[in-house]
């Protein structure tokens, strides 16, 4: 996808003007966060599971080279072919080569964020291969020709009314009523024949199990299994961070993933794949290809952002983020939005291209609190801001402002004089009303609400009064 993160502020302005966007976001994140709360309330062992998951991921990262080789060996033993790719281009080239060697005309795809990362959609289009997105949300945004706006529910920015319009326009036999069930049925009818007609199925993986060489997918709709079982060839594109040592370790993540993502104990379909169809099997693909993708994960591995490689892509951090909830996923301008996107975008592109993303955060700490693998997102956000400052990427106005502030704060008499002056000025502006309705330099605040003028003097005045009494 075309990255637009550097235009974050403009993207936000655009998003805030979309009439339906807030409704669409609120309807979804509201339900997801309340369901998560309810499920966790019934799972007193959650804290223990979360701590264990964090330790398992850290252990796996400590021996990632070893576990990757172990996975590769076992996957090959089960009959899969394993490929490695450093860059998105290498990954898509490998996938397109496999497609071409089978003369593939049509590919079904089960949603994976890694696929978005490497630009699998564009690569297939260039190769002239039809791509059928089978996940309902991906199907919606494919019809709308839009990028995903959330990592778990990618069409979150669409209201049901908008989906209804899209389906009426594109489906052969669209819904008759506008309720959500009828829309889902319409997509089922539309996609059914496409599953059967596809030459190749492409999926991602939620987990790779090192000691068995298995791929694990976790879905609700059942589209992954139809995508991976019906066509003759199954290709898996997956990041090298998805490893866990064994099935027993995986169980901890299965307990956490759906609770964090959707507020359910477990998703409907948790499937473990080992190699292609066996002799005598009636269904299943004849070939299984696994493409292990780096895309700068080894660089993240070697940086302060290493804990980011624990991420299980549950989306809880964005569901709970005030910035994400105000503007949605598109303004972030890259594959990953929300708090985790504000880290992954500079990590996978560059701090320059990521623009304001590390600043699109109030540092309220909710994201880390709700993260099932305890990733210190706010700390990393702070580190990225420092890095921006060091590399002089922070806007000049802010640098100058902070320069003045730093000068004053190092000279208490000057700082106090300054604050006293501001208090006097603010009282003067507010006059009898006690409220400031417009203040130069703080238009962003006063456009939507009044600012109360300080009644009690400066902090130091109050502090001194307090000490005397």
């Amino acid at each position: 996808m075309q990255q637009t993160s550097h235009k974050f502020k403009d993207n936000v302005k655009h998003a805030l003007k979309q009439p339906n966007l807030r409704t669409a976001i609120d309807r979804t994140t509201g339900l997801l966060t309340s369901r998560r709360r309810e499920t966790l309330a019934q799972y007193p062992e959650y804290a223990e599971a979360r701590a264990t998951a964090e330790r398992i991921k850290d252990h796996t990262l400590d021996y990632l080279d070893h576990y990757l080789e172990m996975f590769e060996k076992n996957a090959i033993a089960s009959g899969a072919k394993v490929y490695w790719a450093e860059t998105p281009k290498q990954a898509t080239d490998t996938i397109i080569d496999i497609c071409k060697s089978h003369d593939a005309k049509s590919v079904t795809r089960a949603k994976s964020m890694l696929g978005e990362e490497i630009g699998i959609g564009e690569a297939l289009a260039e190769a002239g291969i039809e791509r059928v997105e089978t996940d309902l949300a991906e199907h919606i945004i494919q019809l709308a020709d839009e990028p995903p706006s959330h990592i778990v529910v990618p069409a979150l920015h669409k209201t049901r009314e908008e989906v209804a319009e899209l389906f009426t326009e594109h489906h052969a036999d669209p819904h008759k009523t506008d309720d959500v069930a009828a829309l889902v049925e319409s997509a089922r009818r539309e996609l059914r024949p496409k599953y059967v007609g596809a030459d190749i199925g492409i999926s991602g993986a939620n987990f790779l199990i090192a000691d068995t060489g298995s791929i694990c997918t976790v879905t609700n709709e059942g589209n992954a299994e139809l995508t991976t079982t019906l066509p003759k060839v199954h290709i898996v594109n997956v990041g090298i961070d998805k490893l866990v040592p064994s099935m027993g370790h995986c169980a901890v993540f299965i307990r956490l993933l759906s609770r964090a993502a959707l507020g359910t104990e477990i998703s409907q379909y948790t499937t473990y794949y080992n190699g292609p169809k066996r002799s005598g099997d009636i269904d299943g693909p004849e070939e299984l290809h696994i493409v292990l993708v780096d895309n700068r994960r080894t660089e993240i591995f070697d940086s302060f952002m290493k804990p980011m490689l624990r991420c299980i892509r549950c989306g809880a951090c964005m569901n709970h983020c005030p910035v994400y909830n105000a503007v949605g996923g598109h303004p972030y301008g890259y594959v990953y939005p929300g708090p985790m996107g504000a880290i992954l975008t500079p990590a996978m592109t560059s701090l320059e291209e990521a623009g304001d993303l590390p600043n699109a955060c109030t540092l309220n700490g909710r994201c880390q609190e709700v993260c099932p693998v305890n990733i210190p997102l706010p700390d990393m956000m702070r580190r990225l801001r420092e890095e921006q400052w060091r590399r002089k990427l922070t806007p000049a106005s802010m640098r100058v402002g902070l320069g003045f502030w730093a000068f004053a704060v190092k000279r208490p008499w000057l700082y106090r004089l300054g604050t006293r002056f501001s208090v006097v000025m603010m009282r003067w502006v507010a006059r009898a009303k006690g409220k400031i309705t417009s203040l130069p330099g703080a238009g962003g605040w006063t456009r939507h609400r009044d600012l109360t003028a300080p009644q009690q003097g400066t902090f130091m005045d109050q502090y001194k009064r307090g000490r005397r009494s």
Partner: protein
Amino acid sequence: MSSQTDGSTGARSAILGALRKSLGRTALDLDVVAGEAQSLLGDATRHQPKFDDQTSRARFIERATSERLTATVDEVAALADAPAAVQRYLQQCDLPAQISHPPMDCLRELDWGAIACHETLSPDEPVAVNIADWAIAETGSLVFTSRSDSPTLYSYLPLHHVILVDGGGILRYMEDYWAMIRAADTAPPRSTNFITGTSGTADIEAQNIRGAHGPRFMHIVIFGE
């Protein structure tokens, strides 16, 4: 030995090389790694949700029939009684007396009475009946593995999925299943499917809707104690 193309070989050594450089590790003691991994598994009871006051069967039924999973459950004394239970279900749903089932001997040998059986599976199959290998009480899940007589798609293509499961095969936790597989020490099947309730989607305004791409209805017949 492993890689398929030159580019892949290069990428493989670059990726592993970068990881090793960053880790700064020289030798690797495999016993230490395995020991650490084992100790992380530690005491699974610490993160397994507790339901000590319930039998596995009771928990399984409670979960499977929950609002979230939307399955219905019938209990019969033995596998031989399963066709009658299937017949009851078909009548309840006002469906024709016709089912598809996988080519398993134990299903072929049942007396299906008035129900017409076929072993083909169409993309729009109305009703398929198959047998689960195991069930998991914790989550209300059913476990299927692929074999020559047990294709995967019977659990995904039909609109109504009717599942027979042995009451003695209800395990408490996911880990119990994996421990059993590990003890058996056989190569894992091509596909192991943990299925929990009917196909659903929350993709439009997070509303839970059934029958997205897989079955819209699930009926479980538990046979035996």
